[in-house]
């Protein structure tokens, strides 16, 4: 298998280590003489290789900056940089290992029972934190990894490429089904790769699998989750550093779980010494890596499992000092490494202890999918039963070929402080026994109190022994004790694989690059980029730029991109009915060619969104929503349409249309040469709408006035966006037109007291307190929010949204507190410096009794208290005369 000429060099703790192709990091380090791979979590005990299958916590290291990497299943690559974790100064000499000598001071739950004085705990906690944890987090400037997501379907997914999985895959494929075979090992074959079983003809099976055309093999990939609807989460690790780690979402008609069984350790004092290994781990080292991990071995186990292992070890050249039954083991002895096994009647010198441990059906996927795990005393294992629909299991995961003789539940009397059940958190059988005596006698509370099964091994090494200890200590059966809940992901998955490629979309309006050329300063609004204001080439401040844009609109003409508004096209005989039902206002009586303001309220009368509704024809409406609420409004309308049989067809035109608002005293003059539409007030009054050509594009024009000037909101095909924008700007040149951004718009509308839903209102605002009591039409047929609005209409509101103007030159921030008599009384929702008023103005929530002309309030301005005066009317053109000009 290995070719000595073909050598790979990696780096371990700064020193070069030579590896062979096919080596894992752990096998290469072991061959180079490394025996201690980790230090344990709590006591910092030495730990060596145990499972060689990526299932235990004993080989976690930092590989190329990634913490907690299972080195025993990570294939070597030239130039890899491997370092140890959680030991200082070195794995061989770790000063924190002194902790284990004070273990009597740290019985189970010691941290709950001590430091109950908060001052003591607050002093102690930083030290506790410092010594906890495993791997070192990468530094914040570390390069981010390469990840991607893929989506696949197949008739049948087979999880596990051992003999049972291979046979199932072949049979399904031969029956004409599209099959995906997932196996977590670099090569197919499962335990046949390192054990000798006469019946199996591995090469034939593998060859067959590879010839079937309707078979897809994902080897070296693991399945971590079997979710609702047979959605499988599968991770395909990267093969070389430039590769992406890929998360495959596989939907399968049927799932066949063939994950086999794994081995977990036996319980005896010092069962964690370096040199105490699982038999499958030893066989993997021998047969997969050509490493004989010792000279003299003691094998602990029961017949009939132990005989083939002994034969195999002998053949490999190991001397077998003794074969002992698990219950006769008194303890393992050794300082740095295991040197002896003490049994009831002898001591056996050795340098390797081989545990023929419990065989545990690897039923994690089945368990999380809803299967029950039922204790089977005959097999000495929890066997999956009641499998969910379209999920089946084959092979050892079903308990096939397991027998109790080989897999005794743990018996250990008396409990020992050094017989480790949980290797991840150093929980001994004594700890478990104590916890149970304290009352944590349910397996779920025992788990949470001792943290057994909650570490990186996810319970693989410790769950069965823990259940055994719990059952024995509580005089319950294994069946009564049961297992803890199975949860995905199992095995664990990296955050990077779950997140996939970084994909956080940015939406740009069709005129984005016009704004960019004009010096836009950007503002994020949901996914959209909008112009906050346009920077001046002279380097004027934001305030000056905004004021120039403001003056352009008030005195001449301005143009703003409003393409981000939600735009819905509604057609059908019953659109009026739907709008009457969904909006608080009435729209069924809206005449074609007219536009009306609309507010959506929920069942409690709370304002959810606002926008315009224009009737283009009897059966054709055009509706706008706020930028952020489009998806919601669309869902809301569709939701209320369900089951009505109404003749309504809704098309979302948001991306298909661009939109601008042209506003200012000269707006009409600018637009006139660009359109065939008669723009005179007689022909096109305020709140009217028309379909007409604008700069060569078919457009919907609405005469509305959010900013308080004569103006048109024009919607037209997105592809004409830049052309129309340029044409309008060109036509406006002689009027000194300026593009204006969100900041100027917010200021302009504030002077008009126009509110922005979601800015000035919040998730509990109703129209009456927002000063929009005219919106709900309570005399129409039933609509959403009617009963709540009818009640609210008769109740005096507690608070009201009111305009205010500052007495002095202060500018409060949005969100500043309103105080009355030193008490918190409300808040500012929006405040801006008004060039028209020469002072800051704004909208604020104040107690209803204060919302009257001239009332004095205090506003907190950066921690100071400043005075302001409430005004009832809008600051600018309160009668709206300018809108109608």
């Amino acid at each position, binding site marked *: 298998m290995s070719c000595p000429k073909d050598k790979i060099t990696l780096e371990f703790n700064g020193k070069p280590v030579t590896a062979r192709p096919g080596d894992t990091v752990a096998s290469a380090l072991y061959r180079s003489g490394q025996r201690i791979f980790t230090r344990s979590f709590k006591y910092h005990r030495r730990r060596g290789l145990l499972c060689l299958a990526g299932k235990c916590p004993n080989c976690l290291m930092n590989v190329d900056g990634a913490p907690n990497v299972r080195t025993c299943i990570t294939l070597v690559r030239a130039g890899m940089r491997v370092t140890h974790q959680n030991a200082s100064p070195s794995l061989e000499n770790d000063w924190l290992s002194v902790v284990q000598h004070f273990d009597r*001071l740290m019985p189970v739950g010691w941290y709950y029972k001590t430091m109950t004085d908060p001052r003591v*705990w607050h002093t102690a906690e930083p030290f506790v934190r410092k010594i906890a944890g495993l791997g070192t987090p990468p530094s914040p400037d570390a390069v981010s990894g390469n990840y991607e997501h893929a989506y696949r379907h197949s008739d049948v997914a087979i999880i596990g490429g051992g003999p049972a999985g291979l046979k199932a895959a072949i049979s399904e494929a031969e029956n004409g089904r599209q099959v995906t075979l997932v196996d977590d090992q670099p090569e197919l074959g499962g335990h046949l790769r390192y054990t000798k079983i006469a019946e199996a003809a591995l090469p034939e099976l593998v060859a067959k699998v590879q010839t079937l055309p309707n078979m897809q093999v994902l080897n070296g990939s693991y399945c971590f989750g079997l979710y609702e609807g047979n959605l499988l989460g599968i991770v395909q690790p990267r093969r070389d550093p430039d590769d992406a780690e890929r998360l495959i979402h596989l939907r399968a008609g049927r799932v066949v779980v063939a994950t086999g069984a794994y081995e977990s350790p036996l319980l005896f004092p010092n069962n964690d010494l370096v040199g105490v290994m699982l038999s499958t781990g030893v066989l993997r080292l021998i047969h997969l890596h050509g490493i004989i991990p010792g000279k003299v071995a003691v094998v602990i186990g029961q017949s009939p499992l132990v005989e083939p292992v002994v034969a195999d070890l002998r053949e490999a050249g190991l001397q077998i000092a003794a074969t002992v039954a698990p219950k006769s083991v008194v303890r393992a002895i050794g300082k740095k490494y295991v040197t002896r096994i003490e049994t009831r009647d002898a001591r056996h010198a050795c340098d390797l202890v081989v545990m023929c441990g419990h065989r545990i059906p690897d039923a994690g996927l089945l368990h999380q999918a809803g299967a029950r795990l039922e204790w089977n005393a005959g097999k000495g294992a929890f066997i999956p039963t009641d499998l969910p629909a379209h999920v089946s299991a084959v092979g050892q995961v079903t308990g096939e070929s397991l027998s109790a003789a080989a897999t005794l539940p743990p018996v250990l009397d008396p409990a020992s402080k050094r017989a480790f059940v949980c290797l991840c958190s150093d929980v001994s059988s004594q700890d478990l026994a104590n916890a149970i005596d304290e009352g944590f006698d349910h397996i779920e509370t025992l788990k949470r109190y001792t943290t057994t099964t909650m570490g990186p091994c996810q319970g693989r090494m410790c769950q069965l022994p823990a259940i055994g200890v719990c059952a024995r200590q509580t005089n319950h059966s294994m069946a009564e004790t049961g297992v803890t809940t199975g949860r995905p992901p199992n095995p664990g998955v990296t955050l990077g694989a779950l997140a996939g490629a970084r994909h956080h979309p940015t939406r740009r309006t069709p005129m984005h690059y016009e704004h960019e050329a004009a010096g836009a300063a950007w503002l994020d609004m949901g996914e959209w980029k909008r112009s906050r204001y346009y920077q001046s080439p002279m380097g004027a401040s934001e305030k000056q730029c905004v004021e120039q844009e403001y003056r352009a609109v008030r005195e001449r003409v301005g143009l703003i991109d409003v393409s981000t508004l939600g735009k819905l096209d509604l057609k059908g005989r019953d659109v009026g009915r739907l709008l009457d039902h969904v909006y608080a206002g009435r729209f069924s009586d809206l005449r074609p060619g007219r536009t009306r303001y609309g507010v959506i309220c929920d069942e409690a009368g709370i304002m959810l969104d606002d926008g315009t509704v224009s009737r283009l024809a009897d059966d054709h409406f055009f509706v706008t929503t706020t930028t952020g609420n489009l998806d919601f409004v669309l869902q809301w309308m569709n939701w209320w349409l369900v089951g009505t049989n109404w003749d309504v067809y809704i098309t979302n035109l948001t991306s298909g249309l661009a939109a601008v608002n042209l506003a200012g005293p000269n707006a009409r003059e600018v637009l006139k040469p660009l359109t065939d539409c008669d723009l005179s007030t007689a022909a096109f009054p305020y709140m009217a709408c028309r379909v007409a050509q604008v700069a060569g594009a078919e457009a919907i024009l609405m005469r509305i006035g959010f900013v308080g000037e004569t103006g048109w909101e024009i919607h037209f095909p997105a592809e004409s966006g830049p052309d129309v924008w340029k044409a309008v700007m060109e036509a406006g040149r002689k009027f000194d037109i300026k593009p204006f951004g969100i900041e100027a718009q917010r200021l302009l509308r504030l002077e008009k007291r126009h509110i922005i839903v979601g800015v000035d209102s919040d998730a*509990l605002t109703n129209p009456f307190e927002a000063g929009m009591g005219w919106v709900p039409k309570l005399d129409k047929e039933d609509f959403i929010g009617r009963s709540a609005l009818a009640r609210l209409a008769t109740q005096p509101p507690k608070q009201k949204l009111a305009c205010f103007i500052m007495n002095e030159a202060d500018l409060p921030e949005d969100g500043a507190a309103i105080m009355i008599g030193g008490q918190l009384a409300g808040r500012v929702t929006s405040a801006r410096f008004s060039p028209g008023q020469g002072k800051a103005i704004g909208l604020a929530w104040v107690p209803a009794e204060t919302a009257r002309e001239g009332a004095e309030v205090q506003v907190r301005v950066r921690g100071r208290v400043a005075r302001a005066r409430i005004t009832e009317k809008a600051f600018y053109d309160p009668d709206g005369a300018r809108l109608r000009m």
Partner: protein
Amino acid sequence: MLKLFKKERMWQRPELKRRYDLVIVGAGVHGLATAYYLGSQHGYRNIALVDKGYLGNGSSGRNTAIIRSNYRTPEGILCYDASVKLYENLSRELEWNLLFSQCGHLTLGHTDASVTGLRIRAENNQALGIDSRIIYPDEIRRLVPAMDLSSRPRFPVLAALYHPPGGIIRHDAVVWGLARACDRMGIGIHPHTTVTGMRVENGSVQSVVTNRGEIVTSAVLNATAGWASTIGKMAGVSMPIVSHPLQACVTEPLKPFLNKVIVSATLHVYVNQTDKGELVIGAEIDPYQSYSMRATLPTLEQMATYTLELFPQLHGLRVLRQWTGVCDMTPDYAPIIGTAQEVKNFFMDVGWGTYGFKAAPIAGKCTAALIATGKAPKLIEPFSPARFAAGQLVGEKAAAAVST
């Protein structure tokens, strides 16, 4: 120190009697805290706490254990502040270290609108004496050096609401500590006891039917969070509650690098690092109603995506478990505490949604006072069940930590 070596049972296995003064349905933190304060402050003893699962199986053991009082409304602020203060002293009171780490809590603002929302909270908090203020990237960087504060993320961090007394606690320890204290007062805790019905006559509950027999009782407290409306239904009490799943996950342990609770409403995620070194990550509530506690892949992916927006260097860190709790959501995201209008001896402490764990001590204390005296303490008056019919909702929805 001697306590350390004394082997004591935390609780006994009491007989389930046939008659009680009060049956508390749900032995999570709310039920336990109510029993604890009824026992310690009002002398009640004849109480049964029944729960369908093991101790702490519900939301008490599924939340992300964040404690804070930087809410938006005066009602919320005062209530949660009282809760934080009770938590601060609870380890000492229960003689059981709840591992309350007042490490500080940051709510990030990534957009102008969210910063305004944070400012509203800061202003309201300060007006009511809560340590809470807006801080900007320079100071955020000092507090959380591991976080990405560059302009690289799609939504860079603009500011944060910093709340130094906020932090995390060991949620299971709260359950165990309260359970032990109740047990020591002689209040019976009965896990694995499922309520299947209630006998109501003349507008009052006569008895509670369980899988272990019928229990005659003078009063019932519903403290079942996600299942609140189903228990209410058994007594003929309706409440405007819908149940939504809420998912969270935990990673492998790392050496400490983050000792602040980080919340981002824009990214719908919250993250903290436990004393053991694991990262605990929570999501917003799932958008659909369900009682299912089966975890889903899309939500896990969302949690990972947003965590990496804040801490991109953690891409190689493995998630070990994801789990789901069920939240009892009300229309205004504020709880319902009080007596049912339909059934006079049916008390409720429900509707806490995603905030239940934080509020447990104060909710328990006030509910205990309500049960013992028949009068709701001022602090919980705004949360009366009658508010929905009267249209007097509380404004907490606007500040839901992970809700837009």
